[in-house]
């Protein structure tokens, strides 16, 4: 049974809305109803999206293992796919961190087929690292391929299961 609120407290609670209304009327001041958004919000949201995606892939890996589904080849391949997506998210997040967040890296098109990567401290290691990070499709395409392979295996397993059921 929930404890009964004492009468004095209830009386105070009753007066709070009335007091708030009274303050608003008696003490007026400027309010900013529409919040202004800075330009960095977009990249932060994007980064958060990447991290959310990454987290969901980690969760998927552990859930598949937790359910014992990793004993099936199809689900194992989906786990590998999730792993590659994690790597891709890490790569993308890092690249965005350098170019959009801290602006440590900047790309300039010099001519067709030539680009200049300008790093804030002229670090060639960072330039090379950023150059490699720009090849992120090398991570997400294998992730998609592994997802496709995983699904194909699940389809094949299901098909053989159905054939076996029909035979019996």
């Amino acid at each position: 049974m929930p404890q009964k609120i004492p009468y004095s407290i209830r009386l105070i609670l009753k007066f709070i809305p009335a007091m708030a209304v009274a303050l608003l009327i008696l003490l007026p001041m400027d309010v900013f109803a529409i919040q202004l958004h800075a330009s960095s919000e977009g990249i932060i949201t994007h980064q958060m999206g990447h991290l959310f995606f990454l987290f969901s892939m980690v969760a998927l890996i552990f859930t598949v293992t937790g359910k014992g589904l990793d004993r099936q080849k199809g689900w194992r391949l989906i786990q590998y796919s999730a792993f590659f997506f994690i790597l891709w998210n890490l790569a993308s997040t890092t690249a965005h961190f350098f170019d959009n967040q801290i602006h440590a890296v900047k790309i300039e098109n010099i001519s067709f087929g030539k680009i200049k990567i300008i790093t804030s401290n002229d670090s060639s290691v960072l330039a090379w690292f950023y150059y490699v990070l720009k090849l992120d499709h090398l991570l997400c395409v294998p992730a998609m391929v592994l997802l496709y392979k995983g699904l194909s295996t699940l389809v094949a397993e299901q098909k053989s299961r159905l054939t076996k059921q029909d035979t019996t």
Partner: protein
Amino acid sequence: MIFSSIPILMVDVAGSVAMVVIALLSLYKATRLREMDPDNAVSLYLLWICVGFTIFAVSRSFGHILKQFLIMTANTETWHSISSYSGSVNTVSFMLVGLITLFFNQNWKINEKILAGRKKLEDTHIKLMDLNQTLEQKVVERTELLTSSEHKCRRIFEQSLDTIMVTDSEFKVMEINPAGIVLTGYSREEMIMKKMTAGSFFADHFEWERISNLIDSKEYILNEEIEFLKPGNETLLVLITGGVDYGAFGCAKSYHFIIKNVNEKRQMERQIAQADKLAALGELSAGVAHEINNPLGIILGYTQLLLKEDSKHKDDLKIIEKHVQTCKTVVSDLLSFSRKGSSEMGIVDINKVVDGVIKFLSNHSDFRNIEMSLNPHTGDMLNILGNEQELAQVIINLVINACHAVEGKGKIDIATQKTKQDKILIMVKDNGKGIEKKNLSKIFDPFFTTKPVGQGTGLGLSVGYGIIKRHQGDIRVKSSEGKGTIFTISLPADNSII
């Protein structure tokens, strides 16, 4: 630092195209999986993921290809103006994939519940099928048992030698077995069509009232001895047991009766009782006759001596002699009845004896107005082992009795027969006044007579009975008042001379 943009460009464009193609292929596979197992929530989940990935791949690839195209065509500014939108769509798409993925656990739980539910449903279905099969099997078994039981009951009903009769609440016959049809003498159709009641078979209407009241008050009757009347006015004794059935399974109230024919049994019991009575009388008579015979001999001897010597009381002595002689005859008859006498046995031709009796009696004045006929058995010789004179005496007695029954004018038939059981029957039938029912059980008793005083000693039939019993035979009587009487002597045939 200056780098070649070609690898980045190549990987970006080719990768984007590959992403779209593989995402679509994955979507196709997920659709196939869903089609193969439409009830599986996991396959639905995988389909959603693939849809998410396809949106992600298409939006991202489109953005990347567009970006490369615009940069290559020196429209970098344009790209900058739309890159925010492309990025936002891209963000939303992989967030969507992430969101769907996070639902996997929940989805899995739902799927497990569905599968567990389905398994339970399948198990229940199997159990139900099993129960249904068991039920069907049980129904078949019970039906067989019921049919068998019904068949047994029907057989008992049909084959029973006792009458089984079912009547409605007003005692109208509803069912009766073949034994009942034979017993009552009515056909089933007659009984049912004419709505005959159980009381219709009773010879005495008051007796039926008593029985029906009894069954209504006690709800049963047990072994009540009743006289039934058959269609030809023939009566027979039956034992009747019955009870009320208040009707189970929606049946109406009915009465069930079991009727046993005890006619022959009762007749046999009467005969046995009669035979026992006559045997006892025979023993008594033999004792008395033996004790009287000797003093009578002495009285007769001395009377005859006095007759020779003294002529003064000659007339008185002659009267004494005559009455002593009568007493001697009675004693002799009593001895004959009690089978204590001795007689010589030989082969006797019954037809010859009967023929002799008829010839002897037909000359008698009492038989002048009586039509006598003889129906002798033809074919086999009717030989028996016995005493010809004694047998002739019995037949003469029966014929004389018949003559008295017809009161000097009527018809007497004498017939002989040989049965399959090697019995020789001699039947003396008259169309006289018959014997009263109450006297039927006494006619073989010594000294029982219905004739006026002086006309008979009452020893004729009892002596005849004794003679026939001594010949291992039997004598029976059947009489209807006003219609006549038939005496039947049964003797064992002798087949030593054929």
